[in-house]
């Protein structure tokens, strides 16, 4: 079994993003997706803090302090980019203008529920940021995450045990072991598997029933 590396997961997501889409990439592996979109394919990146047309990190010594992404890292702007304020930025998100949002998650349920912001109901000071807006607002929500937690618990589940971020929002999940569509009324459908991974091995590491396509 040869699980996808983080870079391979990001590349796998990037492969599925067509030219012309407006895309918001969350913190972590999702951010790495940008590096895997070929330069000639125009995908327009959105950042919650009021940027469209975000480009890669600047070379050292060329950092513009006025230009950071949602993770507060320095970025650049591509020709054709634009700036706007937070209410306009979330109007784009909530109004369904983003073709895609890619987020990390603690858990995804077979009905598309996502939990990615708080680890318990008692964790009353978690950091939600823009996750709920993005999950509820984008036309499509894809999740990129490890297939299981560090201690081996499945993250694809029948029902989320962590506090929810949004109901029924996820349409696709990329893990280090495979790619899954979340199909209404059916659940997780295996679209792709990492090299050497069998359906049985995948099912064993998942907390919900997996389906084969068709």
């Amino acid at each position: 079994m040869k699980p996808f590396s983080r870079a391979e997961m990001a590349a796998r997501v990037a492969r599925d993003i067509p030219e012309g889409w407006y895309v918001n990439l969350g913190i972590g592996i999702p951010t790495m997706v940008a590096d895997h979109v070929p330069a000639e394919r125009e995908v327009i990146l959105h950042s919650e803090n009021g940027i469209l047309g975000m480009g890669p990190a600047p070379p050292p010594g060329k950092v513009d302090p006025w230009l950071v992404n949602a993770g507060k890292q320095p970025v650049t702007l591509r020709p054709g980019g634009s700036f706007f304020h937070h209410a306009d930025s979330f109007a784009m998100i909530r109004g369904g203008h983003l073709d895609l949002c890619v987020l990390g998650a603690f858990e995804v349920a077979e009905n598309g529920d996502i939990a990615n912001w708080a680890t318990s109901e008692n964790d009353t000071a978690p950091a939600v940021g823009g996750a709920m807006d993005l999950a509820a607002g984008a036309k499509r929500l894809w999740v990129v995450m490890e297939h299981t937690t560090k201690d081996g618990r499945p993250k694809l589940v029948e029902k989320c045990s962590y506090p929810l971020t949004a109901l029924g929002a996820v349409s696709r999940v990329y893990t280090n072991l495979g790619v899954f569509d979340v199909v209404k009324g059916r659940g997780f459908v295996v679209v792709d598997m990492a090299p050497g991974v069998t359906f049985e091995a995948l099912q064993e590491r998942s907390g919900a029933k997996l389906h084969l396509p068709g």
Partner: protein
Amino acid sequence: MINKIVRTMAEAMAGIKDGSTVLIGGFGAVGQPDALIEGLIEQGAKDLVCVANNAGTGRTGLARLMELGRVRKIICSFPRSAGSVVFEELYRAGRIELEIVPQGTLAERMRAAGAGIPAFYTPTGVGTLLAQGKEVREIDGRLYVLERALKGDVALIEAWEGDRWGNLTYRESGRNFNPVMAMAAELTIAQVMHLRELGEINPDHVVTPGIFVDRVIRVDRGPEWA
């Protein structure tokens, strides 16, 4: 390569269906997408619901579209004005529906549609005929009317500059309803005075980011508007 710039009016109008709700920008002649309205007349879609501040004047543009019997309903703030002859004829004859909306509520309902807000409370219109049949609610001791988002299938707008990603700027009071309508429609078509190369518009000066715009067509309104 993303290229939202179209060269012909037929391309600009492609796919507009009968029964569409069409948002039409402008305030009087200023920022009014004359060429796109002519394009829509030519294109042929009928049974339209048109949303605009006014109900057309004279016998051209929106008034012509109405006169041709292509407009089922008009949603506007100010239907009766100097020269709104076609509207008045049709209205008296019972051949056009009318929904009057206070101007600020009209703008906010479209902004809400664009921003994913399905409904909001507003103090405008409380206790008036225009609040009849609407939910009224007291919040912190004041009465408010619940108003619903107003979404368009199509927006026809006018802008000053546009690029191939659909970024737009406006000129002076030509801005008016145009940026709001651009947000609120499934298909937003902009006529612009000037095409710019990508990156030529200062990113701090973009008013409508391209995410809200689907097609851009250059229309020179002539030297008096230059």
